[in-house]
């Protein structure tokens, strides 16, 4: 990753500013908001998978957990500030526990995949079977398959009657995404981030160098979950209803697809992949000639076969070939690409 953190900050600021100016003129802010939320969700998996080498089949679990935590807390508290915080903390704490269990048990590759998959399934099945009146947390009925509608949505902190919605909600989400992106960049530039990448490349070597690989992976996993939880809370505010489908395997699958299509090992790839594919899905829903599932599947297969690195690295490569100087990180990056399959399994 060439350049410095301040350069990152400037890039992020510029890109955010431009997007906030231009995008609403092309797409309605309501749709843009969800693209941003999905972008953040993509980033959360992009961080732990692309930089930490942890392939999590259950990122949707943290997304759903964040959304449900927000909804339940908002119904009970009636003011959105504390529920937002909880929606970040609860998934992070859950992920820390789960991560500790997995990483201290030295589970790797497919076994990790199975555990995260199974935990997602358990949560999904549990939430799905809570339709009965006995499943209540405070004043909030869990509602089972039908989900929880009608909770307090985002308000200006301390003023529960001043809702943030419509265009202003879009700006809040956009700024939050920029902030998260900046924090992720800062994390990756810190020694923690460099060690995390080192662990992805060669776990044994890093542990022989004296780093506590298990603790670091657990922390990274929890950070990813916190971001997913935030995305979940933002989603809940946007949709004004949370349903168990947030936890579903289909949702987890989509997050993985976003990362693959956008490009692993980059920060922008998963965000762009998420926003692009979600928008494509939105567009596809307006036609009825070809089955939409078929198209999604085809896109995934074609990407794995012909563009396994994803769009962003491919474009970046093209850019460098055409215009770029030879950056310092180039060799490193090539190795990372070559090792992607191997590093995970």
């Amino acid at each position, binding site marked *: 990753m060439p350049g410095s953190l301040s350069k990152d900050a400037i890039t992020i600021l510029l890109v955010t500013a431009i997007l906030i100016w231009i995008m609403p003129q092309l797409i309605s802010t309501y749709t843009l908001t969800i693209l941003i939320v999905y972008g953040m969700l993509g980033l959360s998996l992009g961080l732990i998978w692309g930089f930490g080498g942890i*392939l999590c089949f259950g990122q949707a679990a943290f997304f759903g957990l964040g959304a449900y935590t927000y909804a339940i807390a908002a119904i009970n508290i009636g003011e959105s500030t504390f529920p937002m915080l909880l929606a970040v903390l609860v998934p992070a704490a859950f992920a820390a526990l789960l991560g500790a269990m997995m990483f201290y048990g030295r589970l790797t590759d497919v076994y990790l995949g199975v555990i995260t*998959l199974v935990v997602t399934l358990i949560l999904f*099945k549990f939430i799905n079977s809570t339709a009965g009146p006995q499943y209540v947390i405070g004043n909030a009925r869990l509602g089972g398959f039908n989900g929880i509608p009608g909770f307090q949505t985002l308000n200006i902190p301390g003023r529960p009657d001043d809702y943030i919605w419509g265009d202003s909600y879009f700006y809040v989400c956009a700024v939050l995404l920029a902030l998260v992106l900046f924090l992720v960049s800062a994390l990756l530039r810190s020694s923690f981030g460099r060690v995390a990448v080192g662990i992805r490349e060669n776990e044994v070597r890093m542990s022989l160098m004296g780093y506590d690989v298990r603790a670091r992976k657990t922390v990274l996993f929890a950070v990813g979950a916190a971001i997913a939880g935030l995305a979940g809370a933002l989603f809940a505010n946007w949709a004004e209803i949370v349903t168990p489908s947030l936890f579903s395997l289909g949702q987890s699958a989509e997050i993985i*697809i976003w990362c693959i299509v956008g490009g692993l090992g980059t920060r922008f790839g998963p965000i762009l992949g998420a926003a692009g594919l979600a928008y494509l899905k939105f567009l596809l829903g307006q036609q009825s000639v070809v089955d939409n599932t*078929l198209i999604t*599947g085809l896109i995934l297969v074609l990407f794995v076969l012909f563009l396994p690195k994803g769009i962003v690295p491919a474009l970046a490569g093209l850019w460098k070939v055409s215009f770029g100087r030879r950056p310092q990180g180039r060799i490193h990056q090539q190795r990372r690409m070559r090792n992607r*399959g191997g590093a995970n399994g």
Partner: protein
Amino acid sequence: MDLTVVILVEMLYAVASLILISAGLAVIFGMMKVINLAHGEFMMMGGYATITAVNLGVNIFMAMLIIAPIVVGLIGLVVERLVIRHLYGRLVDTMLATWGLSLFFIGLATMIFGNTTTGISTPIPGFAIGNYQINGYNFFIIVIAILLLIGMLAILKATRAGLIARGAMQRSDMAAALGYSPDRIYLATFFCGSALSGLAGAVLAPLVGLVPTSGGAYIAKAFITVIAGGPSLIAGLFSSAGFFGIVNQIFTFAISPVIGEVALLVAAVVLLRLLPQGITGKFFKGNF
């Protein structure tokens, strides 16, 4: 007393159906280290192949045991040539590609068959145990699962093809050096695995209402069973299906089907935490 027998039969049935569901995935994963996430859709297509054949007037056993495996096996061949072949050795990429294939097949089946539920009825009548009626088809499933395990064991242990397959599985470079093309072996293995998935889908079809998305219900269970089974193909399949099937049925009877499913999943988490290499990674050393 009668109830005990009924519960016992239901348990055996649960184990047998897990074996059937997982066999195709296990063969492909065990031999080729490819996780076929389109496995559930292969089963779904096996089901549709059976129903279509029966509607065209074919005998139901013929349709289930011969036509469906062949049809799905052939689809597997095409998939192997077009997609999987390019991805050997890239575990994660094969998972993603087959995931894409699973969505693709769901879409395709929806376009061809529509999304209304279809199905055929079971060819075997109900069966009385004391005062209880149970599904006679359960016994058919149990018999098929037993035959399947014996058949796989026999082929791997007693035939030349099985020997080559086992050799290629352990050291594909050595097998190649001895003149056996790994490419051909992989192709044949993928055909067999797909055919087994098709067989499972076909045999289970009379018990369920089939929709193009039916496959999703199987893949997670199969995946868990195969991974928990560990590296040894048949012993792993048998032991983990036995373990999960029994856990599932005990909790289903004692409490409810949901708790049964959740118990299965919790058991999987605990099992993998204790035995991170699967059951057979710890207790069995064989490679069949």
